[in-house]
């Protein structure tokens, strides 16, 4: 009896030799991530008003509002201040995206942010506003819960 079950266990392993491999050949073969995956952020600079609610709700103070080093003026953002992400702190909870009142932030499927130097992981507004490949506007499909939640009118901090 015992021998039989040991043999059964072995057979179970041997069977997998003939099955389709589960392993992805990673750098060459990538898994398609679902829409709404919470990767790095995408900033629409023409929608951002610089209100700072994203920096207020961020649990780890990874967002700072910085003046954008850009010639072009944005009429909706008279002070010209945009969020800058320090990705070594970001936990990808995307509360900032859900709380953004003008929809200036969005999800992307980028997750590959590794660098040799820590300073390189600071993402300026310009870098954030670069649209990734194959992007098709995910946020429109996800009506965030913030739509039904209470967003403070005046910032408390």
């Amino acid at each position, binding site marked *: 009896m015992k021998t039989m079950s040991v043999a059964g266990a072995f057979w179970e392993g041997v069977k997998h030799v003939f099955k389709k491999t589960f392993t992805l050949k990673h750098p060459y073969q990538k898994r398609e991530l679902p829409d709404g995956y919470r990767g790095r952020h995408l900033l629409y600079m023409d929608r951002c008003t610089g209100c700072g609610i994203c920096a207020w709700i961020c649990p780890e103070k990874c967002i700072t509002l910085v003046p954008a080093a850009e010639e072009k003026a944005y009429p909706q953002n008279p002070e010209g201040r945009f969020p800058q992400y320090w990705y070594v702190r970001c936990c990808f909870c995307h509360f900032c995206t859900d709380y953004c009142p003008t929809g200036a932030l969005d999800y992307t499927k980028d997750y590959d942010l*590794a660098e040799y130097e820590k300073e390189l992981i600071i993402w300026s507004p310009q870098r954030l506003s670069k649209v990734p490949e194959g992007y098709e506007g995910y946020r429109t499909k996800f009506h965030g819960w913030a739509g039904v939640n209470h967003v403070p009118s005046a910032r408390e901090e």
Partner: protein
Amino acid sequence: MRLAPGVWVGSLRDLIERVFGAPPLKQLVNWGRIYSLWPVHLMTACCGAEFGAMMGPRYDPERFGMQAATGSLRQSDVLIIEGTVTKKMAKRVKVVWEQMPNPKYAIAMGDCACSGGLFHDSYSIVNEVQKVIPIDVYVPGCPPRPEALLNAVIKLREKIRREEVYSK
């Protein structure tokens, strides 16, 4: 090292370093290092779950010669700091790092290891792990996806490929 022309008085070690540091053999040695990166399983905090997933079947780093964590520090090459390093643990991380043989590399995995992350204002953690040990690659994410960690390993391999043989 040379006193007079044609007379070598350096140690044998110097000679070996010169021979292996030169281009054709250097590439061979670095190639060997790239394909035998054995990690230490030092699960300092929760990112270890994703380290386990990376070692799992879908991503399988053995394709890069990265053997599943063996447990012995004395035969490991790369230390992956998997998450928060607390003050209580920092001392032990240093002990682990010192026990590893040269050449050795370190990857800081996750926000907490890089900068403190969600716990950056806590009373009991070390915010920047590079104050404890030198770090080669930083992987942000909370926790990073296994693919992101794998990409970091590939980045580390590129770094090793460019490196001098006896730099460490």
